[in-house]
């Protein structure tokens, strides 16, 4: 309905934004932060499917997904530090943890998860590292010495204990990965002043989209790395990953839609603001891209790929495409939640706009650099630890 129809007073009241709502403070960096932590949590779930739930088909990517998770976890704080005006004060959060501050919890949740992931990698790779240490010389020998915690013992007795520790770490790692990412969702879901964010479904949606993006990320990098190194791709593994991707994506997509539907059905006093947001500033990024192109198409593609046995070449053609689409879908979802929630003014009468610049501190270029950084770190890790199990013929777990 046109505002002009209500006369001058309504026209004056239209697009009335409080001055403190004009600027979108949580920029691209805060879009990347849940995206990167989501990739970490999702990759860890893939590894746990093998180590805890014994999905044997996932063996080829079980170790790789841990290293993938580590590479992204190292960079998970970078967008936050770049967002802060005084990043050196971030450690105060660890020094004086405020028990009533949801945001201050991140330091401890992140650190605890980091320790668990690092320990699991140390134990899983220990026999490999011990073998590599014997062959290595110079600087690399020292690196492997540190990674092996100075031990050369790979006796049956020590490996048995390692195995128990690995199972324990993987088992507590699952709730911790869920906590890490559920917590990120909670940061948004717990902001009661923002009707787009404030829903108990938010941690769940974040968690499910995290699993989805992590699995998709593993599929893309696995196929890409295998193609580059000219190794044979384990089709069974890809097929299983696709099935899990579909399973998690059904839940993710359904909950995203349920959340929107419950807002629509309850139609409380905030709904008209949300409605104008979804039909106005978010129309393209939400309806056209996130839902129309990058959810509906992958949804049916994944369904076909899971239900019909594709020819190997066809499966390996569609798997990376559908995975990249899912990765874009999750990035769009983060954008629509993080930026979208800030576009509406608390006046509930207007919306602001957000256009990230290329070269500003929190602009597009820094965002690209931060997204490339984990890939570079993963490459460096790949120089030290072998990604694939059969590289040295030693089986760890």
């Amino acid at each position, binding site marked *: 309905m046109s505002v002009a129809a209500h006369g001058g007073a309504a026209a*004056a009241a239209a697009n009335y934004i409080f001055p403190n709502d004009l600027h979108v403070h949580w920029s691209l960096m805060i879009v990347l932060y849940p995206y990167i932590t989501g990739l970490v949590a999702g990759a860890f779930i893939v590894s746990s499917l093998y180590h805890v739930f014994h999905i044997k088909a996932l063996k080829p990517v079980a170790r790789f997904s841990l290293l993938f998770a580590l590479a992204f976890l190292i960079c998970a704080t970078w967008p936050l530090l770049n967002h802060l005006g005084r990043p050196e004060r971030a450690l105060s959060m660890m020094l*004086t943890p405020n028990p009533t501050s949801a945001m201050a919890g991140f330091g401890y949740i992140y650190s605890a998860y980091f*320790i668990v992931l690092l320990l699991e990698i140390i134990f899983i790779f220990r026999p490999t590292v011990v073998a590599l240490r014997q062959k290595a010389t110079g600087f690399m020998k020292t690196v492997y010495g540190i990674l092996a915690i100075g031990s050369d*013992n790979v*006796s049956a007795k020590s490996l048995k204990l390692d195995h128990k520790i690995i199972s324990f770490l993987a088992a507590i790692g699952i709730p911790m990965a869920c906590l890490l990412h559920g917590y990120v969702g909670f940061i948004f879901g717990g902001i009661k002043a923002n009707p787009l964010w404030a829903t108990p479904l938010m941690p769940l949606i974040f968690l499910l989209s995290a699993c989805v993006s992590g699995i998709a990320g593993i599929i893309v990098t696995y196929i890409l790395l295998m193609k580059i190194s000219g190794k044979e791709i384990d089709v069974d593994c890809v097929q299983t990953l696709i099935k899990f991707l579909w399973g998690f994506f059904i839940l993710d997509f359904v909950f995203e839609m349920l959340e929107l539907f419950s807002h629509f059905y309850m139609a409380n006093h905030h709904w008209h603001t949300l409605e104008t947001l979804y039909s106005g500033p978010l129309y393209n990024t939400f309806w056209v891209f996130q839902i129309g192109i990058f959810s509906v198409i992958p949804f049916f593609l994944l369904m076909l790929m899971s239900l019909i046995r594709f020819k190997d070449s066809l499966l390996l053609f569609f798997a990376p495409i559908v995975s990249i689409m899912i990765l874009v879908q999750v990035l769009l979802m983060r954008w629509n939640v993080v930026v979208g929630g800030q576009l509406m003014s608390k006046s509930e009468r207007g919306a602001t706009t957000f256009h990230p610049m290329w070269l500003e501190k929190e602009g597009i270029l820094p965002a690209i650099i931060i997204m490339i950084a984990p890939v570079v770190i993963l490459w460096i890790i790949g120089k030290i630890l072998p990604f694939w199990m059969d590289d040295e013929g030693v089986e760890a777990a």
Partner: protein
Amino acid sequence: MEKRYKSGDYAHVLRLAIILIVAAVLGIFARGMFLPDTMGQYGFYRGSDIEDQRNVTIRNQTNDACFECHRPIRLIHKEGVHKTVSCEFCHGPYADHIKDGKRVGKLPVKKGMEIKDLCLRCHNKVIKARPETSIKVIAMPQHLEEKKVQVTHNCNQCHMVHDPLLWIKAAYEMMGMEMKGDKK
């Protein structure tokens, strides 16, 4: 017979446990070292921060502080539609001008095209932060074209900056015309 190793079967686990314990102890030690003494004195913040905040020198004053000396401008500014605009918003903080009752510096008075930039800080149509009824927002040079003046004109050629409608109202009065709308 099994191969002999230099390290014990559980050596690495023990070492890791020791590393974690040492790290935790160092963390607690570091916390004790870096934690401000007055942390938590009154609540969840550094108690001495209250003293620090109290010692921050006040740099801004109210318009009345300016009007104590600047009498002629007071008469104009307090009557016009800009009466709620702080003097310091255009001229800078009081502390740069007066310290301990003595004049310590000259505050800037915007000249030439700087004036246009200053006006557009609030009156720019791009900023949609406030409703039309509370602030006049314009686009340049559209506004000059509408008013049928040269597009090179500066804001203060038509508007007295302290009372933007002073001359406009006078001109209407001279011509015996009435102003549109409810402009005061």
